[in-house]
């Protein structure tokens, strides 16, 4: 029995080695230098596509849900990195009816690499509750006034400022020195050794189109050896990048938003608000560095030649931690909590109409505070880069100075599913205890669905 086990193990080992060798055919004498190099290190376009599909849950391609800053279905993870987002959302039951969100992130380099997010939300305008009350059962006038509203009669325009630095934001640029040190730690002296060996190999009179069989003895061997070494170094480099990106995607974000909500007077009063938001995830790069302060200082990393040792080195601990989070995604590895506090001032809305019905609206201005808490749960899938996410959000609007208005509660759950790298399909269930600016209790539930599109980089 024992002999059989040993024999099977031996055969499996041989098969594995044979398989590995089959995947990596050695260079042949008729190869050019370039062909030999690219057997181990595929050309740029192929390398980019292959590696991109391998990095399946990183920050860049992460599903960030719906982009809207002010709608109840907004995600707990706001994207300050993509250049441009567009989202359309519709509803089967009236809450906020059809809405189109345009989202544009603009670099704001006064304090470094900070971003300003400009966003416009065009919502299908409907008659305000005050106007509906005045119109009563006059359906002809209600229809006339509703038809008079256009797509530009309910617009929210906002500007959000998000600092990007070592502690806040998901930009890789802020961590260049740390990442370079970690990669150096992971690759040790291998890269320098490989480059020096190449520099010491005479390429006088040689082009990359030269065939290996035509090169001086030893040169072809060195090229293949360097190509193989570069393949291994590049793989280690990419492993560190991938682990780093996992934690970078969980970095906290802090941002302030100013929103102007314009409404046609028939749709309600316009308002101006200021909002402060904070998002955080438990397994961030900040947290990892705090927990590994001793082995992850610049001086300590520089001493860690054998970077892959999990127990003693920063890069080893980073890789182990990132794998643990990725494997634990459904158990909360990258869940995200977002809280925000908003002060809103609504204008007074006073006007009279004689046609199509004689009505007078006299709504005083008001102030309110809006508290929002949102929790996002990414859902891993077996398909690369097609993860979904759940976002749960509760908004509470405390209208403190107007007895005619009551506080408003909105709760939502949104599931967004990535369909492609740039297209996400969100589906939301929204509960509100009453419509905006409606004093009486009028509980309603809405189902929203839509489409979110991230514009690819316009550079050819």
């Amino acid at each position, binding site marked *: 029995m024992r002999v059989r086990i040993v024999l099977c193990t031996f055969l499996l080992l041989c098969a594995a080695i044979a398989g590995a060798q089959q995947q990596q055919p050695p260079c042949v004498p008729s190869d050019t230098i370039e062909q030999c*190099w690219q057997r181990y290190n595929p050309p740029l376009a192929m390398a980019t596509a292959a590696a*991109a599909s391998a990095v399946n849950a*990183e920050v*860049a391609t992460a599903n960030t849900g719906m982009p809207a800053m002010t709608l109840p279905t907004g995600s707990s993870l706001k994207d300050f990195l993509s250049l441009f987002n567009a989202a359309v959302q519709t509803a089967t039951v009236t809450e906020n009816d059809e809405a189109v969100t345009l989202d544009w992130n603009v670099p704001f380099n006064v304090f470094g690499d900070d971003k300003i997010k400009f966003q416009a939300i065009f919502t299908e305008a409907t008659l305000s509750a005050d106007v509906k009350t005045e119109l009563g059962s006059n359906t002809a006038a209600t229809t006339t006034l509703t038809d008079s509203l256009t797509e530009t009669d309910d617009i929210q325009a906002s500007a959000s400022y998000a600092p990007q630095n070592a502690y806040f934001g998901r930009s890789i*640029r802020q961590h260049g020195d740390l990442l370079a040190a970690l990669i150096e730690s992971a690759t040790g002296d291998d890269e320098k050794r490989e480059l020096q060996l190449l*520099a010491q190999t005479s390429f006088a009179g040689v082009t990359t189109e030269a065939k290996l069989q035509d090169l001086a003895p030893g040169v072809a061997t060195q090229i293949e050896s360097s190509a193989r070494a570069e393949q291994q170094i590049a793989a280690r480099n990419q492993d560190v990048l991938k682990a780093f990106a996992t934690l970078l995607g969980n970095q906290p974000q802090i941002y302030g938003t100013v929103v102007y909500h314009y409404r046609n007077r028939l749709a309600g009063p316009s308002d101006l608000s200021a909002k402060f938001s904070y998002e955080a995830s438990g397994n961030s790069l900040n947290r990892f560095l705090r927990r590994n302060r001793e082995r992850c200082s610049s001086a300590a990393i520089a001493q860690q030649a054998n970077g892959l040792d999990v127990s003693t080195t920063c890069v080893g601990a980073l890789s182990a931690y990132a794998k643990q989070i990725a494997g634990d995604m459904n158990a909360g590895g990258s869940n995200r909590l977002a809280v925000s506090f908003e002060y809103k001032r609504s204008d007074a809305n006073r006007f009279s109409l004689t046609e199509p019905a004689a009505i007078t609206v006299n709504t005083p201005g008001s102030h309110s505070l809006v508290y929002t808490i949102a929790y996002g749960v990414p859902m891993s899938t077996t398909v690369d880069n097609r993860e979904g996410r759940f976002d749960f959000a509760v908004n509470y609007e405390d209208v403190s100075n107007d007895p005619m208005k009551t506080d408003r509660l909105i709760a939502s759950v949104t599931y967004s599913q990535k369909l492609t790298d740039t297209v996400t399909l969100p589906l939301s269930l929204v509960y509100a205890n009453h419509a905006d600016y409606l004093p009486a209790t009028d509980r309603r539930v809405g189902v929203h669905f839509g489409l979110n599109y991230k514009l690819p980089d316009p550079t050819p």
Partner: protein
Amino acid sequence: MPSCSNIVIWEPIPANSRFCAQASGTSTDFLVGVRIVGADGSDTQFRNGDLVPGPAHRSLTSQQYATRITLTPGASAPTVTMNAWIEDSTGSRIFECTWSASAAVTAVRVTVITVPASA
């Protein structure tokens, strides 16, 4: 500016030439690096601070060098472009290449070998 392979040999490099490189991106969310190692073991490294907007340059002595160029777009997957060239003693560009990368958090790596005229 021709787009080149991930392995390039520039030869012959006249005396008193210099290796120059500069990088740019459609956003600032990227990392770039250039590492120039000589046959004698000399090691020069440039990073974002040197290369953006750059150019960074290193004088080449009469030995062979091997250079590793890396382009790593960050989370926003910007298109990152690296332009590298050899300037002769008069400032003329005698060899030049451009490489781009746009896959998020995925390093594109290029090797450039420069061979001196006297070799």
